[in-house]
């Protein structure tokens, strides 16, 4: 099982393409409210907020970032026996 992980937050340029693609991965619409990625400005930098309470392992989100801020990490599903 995989999930989205932020690996280079310092490189974020705030384009929000990841947030658009995150919402589009789950439905056929662009909706920043329902996106599991949110980008917020933090002084001169940007913060990447992830909602891990939902499925996030979409390669299209990883590949959409022009600065390589994400990857997919393997996680152990504790519900599996």
């Amino acid at each position: 099982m995989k999930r989205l992980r932020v690996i280079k937050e310092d490189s974020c340029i705030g384009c929000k393409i990841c947030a658009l693609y995150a919402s589009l991965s789950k439905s056929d619409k662009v909706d920043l409210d329902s996106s599991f990625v949110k980008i917020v400005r933090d002084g001169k930098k940007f913060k990447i907020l992830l909602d891990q309470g939902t499925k996030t392992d979409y390669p299209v989100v990883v590949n959409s970032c022009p600065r390589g801020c994400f990857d997919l990490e393997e996680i152990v599903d504790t519900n599996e026996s």
Partner: protein
Amino acid sequence: MNPKIIKIDLTSREFSIVSSRVSDQYIGGEPLAYALLNEYLTGTYKMQNYMSLNTGPLNGLFPFTSKSLIMHFSMGMSVNKYIGGGSLGSLMNFSNVISIEIFGESLVPLYLDITPRGVSFIDVLDSFNSREFGLTGRRSSVLFKKTIISDEYFSYGVPRTEISNNLVGLTFSAVGEVPIPDRDAYWEVVQLLNSRIKELGVKKSNSPSCLGCPVGCALSHSPESGNSPLLPRSLLSCVYAESIYRDIPTVFSCFSVLGLGYTHDFLESFSDMSGEMIKNTYNKIEELKIKNSITGLL
């Protein structure tokens, strides 16, 4: 679904949200701003400040189309346009809001907190902090200072005439969704546009980027002159992407994957039609100037 226009009266502190078909004919951006000004001069015009903030239907959904245009029609009857980057235009488009028109003036310094559902009028007191307003991750702010600036970084330039409406600034928050009828076709067009990145006159850098733009160029904070052809000006594409968005087949593809019904023939005739309407708007302004000078209002 017709795009919405938010009309805000600073004098009475009232607003209305109307559905409009003006974008059927003028798409968005600069031609749409002129069409709305034309409508205003024809209809309810009275001697007062007028301003509009405008976006286009591709804004934020396709790369290099993320600008917004602020038009100011001054009490001295001059039209000034200011184009800047950031996220305002895209967030408006994601909310199906094509324009925000602002009329009149406030007696005291005022800030507007806007969503597609309503407008709050906030008196600017000593403790005022514009960062307190808007929705996390989907807000854009514009401040009218010596320079018009959005998202604390992107400049629209220095106002050429005084904007004397006492509006300190505004925050717009996106609420709503844009349906993408065919996701695979949409991604295909986006990838095609991204592959043309070498055609841009700017290089990738690590500066804050306009929403939806992968470049993050060093010039993203600079205001634009708006001297490109009318089709890219209606889309509010980046001036450095003019060669991409003046190309009718490319623009037609973008509209098609969004399910927008602009035909190829319409796009071919768009510049002539819009140019005529803009000329007509300036003629109306000249007529009003003459009328006002006769009645001694100027």
